[in-house]
C-alpha cells in the first residue's frame, strides 16, 4: 500500500473525528521533527558554543518566527485533542459516539484558537519589534 492510497482512505472516511485524528498525527509529526532539531541546537550550547549563537540567530529570523507561531498552534491542538482522546479512552469510553465525538472536536478547536490567538499576537509583536535588526 502506498501513501497515496492510505491517505485517500483517510479522506474517504470523512467526519470531524477522522479529521481530528489526521491533524493529531500531522501536528505530532511536525512537533517531533522540531523537537529533534531543538534538542540538537540546544546541545550546541554545551558541545559547540559558537554554533549555539548561530542557531539562536537563525531562530530570530522572521520566517522561523512564523514557524514558531505555527509550532505553538500545533502544540496547543495536539495537547488539547490528546487530553480529549485520553479522557474518552481511559475514563469514559461510552463517549466514543459519532455525535459526542463531533461536538468535542469542535470544542477542542474553539479552545485551541482562544488560547492560540493571544499567544500569536504576543509572538507576532515580538517579530515586528525586531524586524530589521
Amino acid at each position, binding site marked *: *500500500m502506498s*501513501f497515496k492510497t*492510505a491517505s485517500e482512505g483517510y479522506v474517504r472516511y470523512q467526519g470531524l473525528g477522522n479529521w481530528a485524528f489526521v491533524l493529531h*498525527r500531522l501536528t*505530532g*509529526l511536525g*512537533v*517531533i521533527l522540531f*523537537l*529533534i532539531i531543538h*534538542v*540538537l541546537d*540546544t*546541545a550546541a*550550547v*554545551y*558541545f559547540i*558554543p559558537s554554533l*549555539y*549563537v548561530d542557531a*539562536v540567530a537563525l*531562530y*530570530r529570523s522572521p520566517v*522561523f*518566527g512564523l514557524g*514558531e507561531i505555527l*509550532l*505553538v498552534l500545533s*502544540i*496547543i491542538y495536539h*495537547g488539547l485533542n*490528546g*487530553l480529549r*482522546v*485520553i479522557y474518552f*479512552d*481511559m475514563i469514559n*469510553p*461510552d463517549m*466514543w*459516539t*459519532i*455525535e459526542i465525538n463531533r461536538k468535542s472536536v469542535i470544542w477542542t478547536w474553539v479552545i485551541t484558537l482562544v488560547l492560540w490567538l493571544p*499567544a500569536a499576537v*504576543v*509572538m507576532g509583536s*515580538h517579530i515586528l*519589534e*525586531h524586524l530589521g535588526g
Partner: protein
Amino acid sequence: MTTQTKRVEVPQGWEAFAWKWMRYSGVLIFILAWIHVLIQDILVGVYQIDTSYVAARWNGGFWRVYDFLLLFFAFSHGMNGTRQVLADYIHSEGGRRALNWILLILWAIVVVVGTITIFAFTPPAG
C-alpha cells in the same frame, strides 16, 4: 443517528503497553510542555534567549531536572508516535522491525546528547 459500541478484549503485550504509554505520558507532557512553551516561546521569547540566559536558567537543579523530564517523556512519546504512524504504512514484518530499530537508535542518540547537555553544561567563563 444511533451508534452501537462494543467492548473488546485487547491482548496484553508490548503494543498495548505502548498504547497506554502514549496516554499516561501525554498527561504529564501536557503540563511540562505547555509551561515550557508559555515561558520560553511566549513570555521570554527567542530574542532574549542566549548563552547567558541558558546559564542563568540552568544555574540550579530545578530547571535541569524539569528539562530532563520534558526531554525524556516528550521525545519518547514522539518517537513512539512516529513509530505508530509509520507502522500504518509499512506492512512487512522485516520493514517494521527495521523501523523499530532505526527509531530506537535515533531515540537513544537524541536522549543521550540532550541529557549530557542538560547536566554537564557549565557557564562559560567571563
